[in-house]
């Protein structure tokens, strides 16, 4: 050890080097949890559960955004789509039983899928820049949410809410966390290793080279938005589970917070670089900050300011690390 430290500079194995950012984000999450326990010694199972409940919709919004950003695009309809699926589910599930609620959830997922495909098709076929199309579509979906439910209301059977709100396995493992892991493992992990997953990264990294490599660029772009729609719909259902109601304006927060989360999670807004695990941890970090402020007795309205500062600092530190690695 000592000899190694003197003679050979530490060269991390490739896996660590390539996933350095993700590892860093998880280290930051661990550090913030330790900090939280330090300032609030009674932090326990209940707090973990409320952290997971708060982070679940944000993590899903981030997942929706990640898929599109990796493919070299941007999707500003994530929040409004979450609102649409949230109010739709809450309105349909009011007074229904658990089995009907599950059926409605499946229908809502199909709707999210269709809405995403619709967004993607407009982006691809109109040839209008994605940021313009999805900004315009975000107003459309925002309006649709208000048409479905003009003020917060609706409901969902308690069993359905408990899918996220309980802690079935152990008091320390909230269902919301399990749900998130299951969704990411079931939707993202199989995709990532597939040729479609490679194509997704390819069109975000170098669209010309991807085209020349035989990738069907328009199709993969539409699929990226479709998958984003699925994640947004799951996010909307998560809102229904965690709040128990539908709220047409609930989504507005999640579009830009989702973007902030993926940036903190190591996804490059230029496309082609990053993964899903980083943003998931980032969602927990950004949810923990306002809670810590309450424990510290600081006005929670400072939360946004501090979140912004954290994001800029982390991205700066990451950039410096990348710069230092380059000349070697």
């Amino acid at each position, binding site marked *: 050890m000592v000899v190694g430290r003197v003679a050979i500079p530490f060269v991390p194995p490739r896996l660590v080097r390539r996933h350095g950012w993700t590892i860093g984000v998880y280290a930051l999450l661990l550090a913030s949890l330790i900090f939280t326990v330090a300032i609030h010694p009674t932090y326990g199972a209940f707090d973990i559960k409320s952290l997971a409940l708060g982070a679940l919709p944000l993590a899903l919004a981030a997942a929706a955004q990640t898929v599109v950003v990796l493919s070299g695009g941007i999707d500003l309809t994530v929040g409004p789509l979450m609102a649409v699926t949230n109010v739709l589910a809450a309105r349909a599930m009011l007074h229904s039983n658990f089995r009907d609620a599950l059926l409605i959830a499946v229908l809502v997922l199909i709707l999210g899928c269709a809405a995403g495909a619709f967004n993607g098709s407009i982006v691809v076929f109109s040839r209008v820049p994605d940021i313009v199309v999805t900004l315009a579509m975000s107003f459309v979906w925002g309006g649709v949410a208000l048409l479905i439910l003009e003020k917060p209301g609706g409901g969902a059977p308690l069993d359905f809410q408990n899918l996220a709100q309980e802690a079935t396995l152990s008091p320390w493992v909230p269902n919301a966390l399990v749900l998130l892991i299951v969704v990411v493992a079931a939707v993202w992990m199989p995709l990532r290793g597939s040729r479609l997953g490679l194509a997704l990264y390819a069109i975000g990294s170098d669209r010309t080279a991807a*085209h020349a490599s035989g990738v069907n660029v328009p199709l993969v772009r539409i699929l990226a938005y479709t998958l984003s729609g699925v994640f947004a719909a799951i996010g909307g259902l998560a809102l229904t589970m965690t709040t128990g109601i539908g709220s047409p304006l609930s989504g507005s927060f999640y579009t830009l917070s989702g973007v902030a989360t993926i940036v903190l999670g190591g996804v490059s807004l230029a496309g082609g670089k990053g993964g899903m695990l980083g943003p998931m941890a980032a969602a927990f970090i950004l949810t923990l900050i306002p809670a810590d402020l309450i424990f510290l007795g600081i006005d929670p309205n400072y939360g946004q300011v501090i979140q912004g500062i954290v994001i800029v600092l982390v991205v700066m530190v990451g950039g410096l690390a990348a710069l230092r690695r380059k000349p070697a």
Partner: protein
Amino acid sequence: MSELSPLLEVSSLSKRFGPVIALRSADLSVRPGEVHALMGANGAGKSTLVKVLTGVLRPDGGTIALRGKIRVIASPAEARRAGLMPVYQDPALIPDLTVLQNLRLTGTPVEAVRRWLSELGMSGIDFGVLTRDLPPPSLRLLDLARALAAEPDVLLLDEITAALPADLTTRVFDVVGRRRAEGRSVIFISHRLAEVSVFCDRATVLRDGETVGVVEPARGAEAKIVDLMLGPVAADVARAEAQRAPIRSGDGPGKSRLEVKNLRAGSMLQDVSFTVRPGEVVGVAALEGQGQGELFDCLAGVRKPDAGQILVEGRATSFRHPYDAIRAGLVLVPADRMQALLRQRSVRENIALPLVSRLTRWGLINVRSERRRVKQAIERLQIDTRAQAQVRRLSGGNQQKVSIARWLAAGFQTLLCFDPTRGIDIGTKRQIYVLVRELAAAGSSILLFTSELAEIPLACDRVIVLFGGRVVQVLPANVADESTLLRAAHGLAAEAAS
């Protein structure tokens, strides 16, 4: 010549981009087991033809027939299935994916790629690295190995040798040439006539998007190819210029314009000293990666040297930014045209950009004076401005002319040219070298690195040879023939000098 039926038959193919006609009427007939060269000046339509053949672009008219059957090639994937496999000028590898992932993306068998790579002498490539981290020659060979692994009937190589050092070029010829025996064909695009005459069975020559002739280069037909490429009038001009091109003896009067003392930067550039006098063209000869890149970056203010001095007109300088170098009169023409130019902007804006600070009064651009100076530069360099609205639509040679024209309009004392003729046809090449001589005659100093050693005596007064980040030899240009330079560049300087 045996009368085999053609494997690939292209007839009267046409393609236009808005008002610009890239292909007027291209014909091409490739026999099985043939290496067929595609030649033409910049903007003649070679790259467009390759892109149409491989499904990247859709043609406006004409037909493509494979083994006598007319095919519509609508996408790169379809071209692949039809047995047409390209290796483009820009490697089609995804920078953010590993080598292995890139192969999986295209469904290429990994073992076959490994086998071809070892035949190409590149078995050392680690398939787990991101292709972003590989040097350009490795990328090109990887792209080539991937294309070979698909076992295509027709392999299309667009300027494959442009970015390769000489030893690898030979390897590529060996490996690709062996495919002839299997009845597979190669379409080979290159500006290097010498390669074409050694390596190719026949050559199709394009001019202004039209096929103007098919020749057999093996019978010493270089002159004929040049005439075909340039057209009747231009060929006469080129010959006259070649005869005129004077080589001055390098004893420029007065003190040095640029002096470099013990410059060191990074691991490549170890210790380099030399001087450039006013009115002198100093050539830099080196194999790939001997510190020439770092040298030019330091002189242009792109990076800071670790040690040593750069003196301009006898005064020590310290460049923190290209802006400082430009102010000191040192301007760079990089090999990668796109690094210097704003792709989406017009020719006029690109040329005027370095001028802007001088043309503004009260923060407004004096449009009339801008237009006049830009027009002068365009005329002087004979830039083909058919596609002037966006620089990225120009051909490679015309892009390079624009990147020189910028400095011509803005004014400079020392021009740093880093491989300015890479991938450029001989007509434009000659114009660039004539321009370099003219600029020197007018008192400018020029430092010129070129990867084509045969061109050094054409343009330079003196040559410095770099090896291992040091100057190993300084030669007057009139004794710097290709073999002397090659020996010196391989570090055999002492022998060569004795």
